[in-house]
């Protein structure tokens, strides 16, 4: 087990380095003069040159690359061009906010979806099964920003049940923050329910097919207990897989939902960094999202390996 973890860790570090290189290449391919972007079009050429020299963009690309990689591993992302404060001061609070929302969304979605998946799997191909599957299919196909807009307009504006701006005022207790985060979390629930339900349904179906063969040879063990134990395990594995992959998306991809609720998570931070060409913030945020994705898939792999010894033993080819 330990060897497997170490191996995965090593490959994750390599991937991180590759990721940092890709990000570096991307942002340096963006046309434009950094000094000019920051100081504006009306600044004098000498001032622009001085600024460029000061922040080091006139150094050769290779030396900038090494500095950039070194800084990634020390989590030093420099200063924002737009607001001149440290990038970490901008992206970590945003990260925290995204995390809160993701956590709430998962807390609601996972139990419901797994339950629905198991429920549907046990009634495979009957009417209820088809209903669950197709409902899930339909709701997951609606773009997340649409669900968010509809929920916002009905729950928050019309019926005044939720808050139009999902950012709770500073100092609200954890419990007090729930009403604020609930509506955007619901939008995410609608989007992910279908997917997770179908995934866990698939896992359970697989498991059931095996279990019937197996339990036929088992005597003395309560069929129900065996089934329950196995069913949950079967439902869980694909769910973990899905969640680990989706986590990266939840931190960087739900820009639409964040925009609708004026929620300043990592997605909307990246969005404003893109529109204002604020390279350090963009670089830092993209790397952060990448790191989160890699960590979550690493953890998921380790957990699954823990559950299934066969995974650990196979070497990656």
């Amino acid at each position: 087990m330990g060897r497997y973890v170490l191996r995965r860790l090593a490959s994750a570090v390599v991937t991180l380095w590759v990721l940092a290189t890709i990000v570096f290449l991307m942002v340096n391919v963006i046309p434009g003069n950094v000094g000019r972007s920051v100081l504006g079009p009306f600044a004098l050429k000498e001032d622009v040159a001085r600024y460029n020299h000061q922040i080091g963009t006139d150094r050769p690309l290779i030396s900038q690359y090494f500095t950039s990689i070194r800084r990634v591993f020390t989590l030093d992302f420099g200063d924002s061009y737009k607001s001149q404060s440290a990038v970490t001061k901008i992206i970590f609070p945003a990260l925290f906010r995204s995390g809160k929302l993701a956590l709430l969304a998962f807390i609601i979605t996972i139990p419901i979806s797994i339950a629905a998946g198991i429920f549907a799997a046990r009634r495979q191909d009957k009417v209820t099964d088809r209903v669950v599957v197709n409902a899930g299919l339909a709701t997951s196909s609606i773009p997340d920003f649409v669900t968010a807009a509809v929920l916002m307009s009905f729950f928050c504006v019309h019926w005044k049940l939720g808050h139009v701006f999902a950012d709770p005022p500073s100092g609200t207790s954890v419990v007090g923050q729930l009403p604020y985060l609930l509506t955007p979390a619901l939008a995410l629930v609608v989007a992910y329910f279908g997917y997770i339900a179908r995934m866990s349904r698939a896992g359970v179906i697989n498991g059931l097919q095996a279990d019937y063969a197996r339990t036929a040879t088992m005597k003395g063990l309560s069929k129900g207990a065996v089934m329950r134990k196995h069913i949950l395990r079967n439902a869980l594995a694909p769910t973990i897989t899905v969640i680990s992959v989706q986590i990266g998306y939840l931190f960087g991809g739900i820009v639409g939902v964040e925009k609708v609720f004026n929620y300043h998570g990592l997605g909307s931070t990246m969005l404003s960094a893109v529109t204002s060409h604020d390279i350090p913030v963009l670089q830092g945020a993209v790397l952060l999202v990448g790191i989160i994705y890699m960590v979550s898939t690493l953890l998921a792999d380790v957990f699954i390996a823990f559950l299934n010894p066969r995974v650990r033993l196979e070497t990656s080819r």
Partner: protein
Amino acid sequence: MSDSEEFVPQPAEIVSTPGADVYMPNTTISGTAVPPNTPAEIELSGAVQVSERQQARRENWRLIRRRPAFIVGVFIVLVWTVCAVLGDRITPHSPLDFRVAGNGQHLSPRASYPFGTDEQGRDVLSRVMAGARDVLKVAPLAALLGVFFGVILGMVMGYFGRWIDNVLGRIVEAFLALPVILLALLAVSTLGHSPTVVIGVVAALFTPVVARTVRSAVLAERDLDYVTSAKLRGESSAFVMFREILPNVSGPIIVELTVRIGYAVFTVATLSFLGAGPQPPSPDWGAQVSEGFRNISADIWWTTFFPAAAIASLVIAANLIADSVQSVLEAS
């Protein structure tokens, strides 16, 4: 039947959802292998295999055609394709016609304007119909390109293995960690708002996803007898990959393609919602939702609802088709 892999999700269904980029035999590149699909095929030699395969395919196709989900999906796609092709020739009003006199703005749905009018007085039904073109111009092509390159990449990784797989695998994983929408936005804001840029970026970011799927499928095949016999015959690697293995993994690839199309529609719509789509006054669906959304709190729901429903319908259609194909392939 062997003891099934409990923890290798053999999904009975695949679905495009936000961020869904996984047809999942495995979680990651360094995951587990997939049991073979059709034991029957593996036992046979090459020549016999071909005709059996063709027959199996025809049979599958017949089965797929008859599934209701497939029919519904294809029907929806056809409707939008017709709208895209014929464009403003069949729309009841011009999608770009302004009612400049100040009345005619934000009319609720009625007989003359079944979907109502927007804030500049344009007929929403016409704009939704015309908007099909913008989506169908970009999404299928992006998906196709992504699958094309993904297949090549996945083949190479799965077949050659060893260090090629490791090196490429790290690069693929790194790309998978990048946020698609933000990068597409970045590309558009620096390279311009052309559909080519969007297609290019989306295809580039789909390639690693497809590659991963193809790789796992290839991993399952490459130790099988027909591959070994082809190698013994002296065939080149390219031949083995694309003439021998590829047909056997075509099932998952087709499914992946349809899933990718759904996801491409999704991504493209979100991009134009965020302002990276075609320029105004284009009737692009995502742009329409973005324009209409600011009036939702004034009870003007139709300018948002109908384009959004259009987007959803196309994604659902893609998923229904993918679902049908997958079910049939699975069962066979």
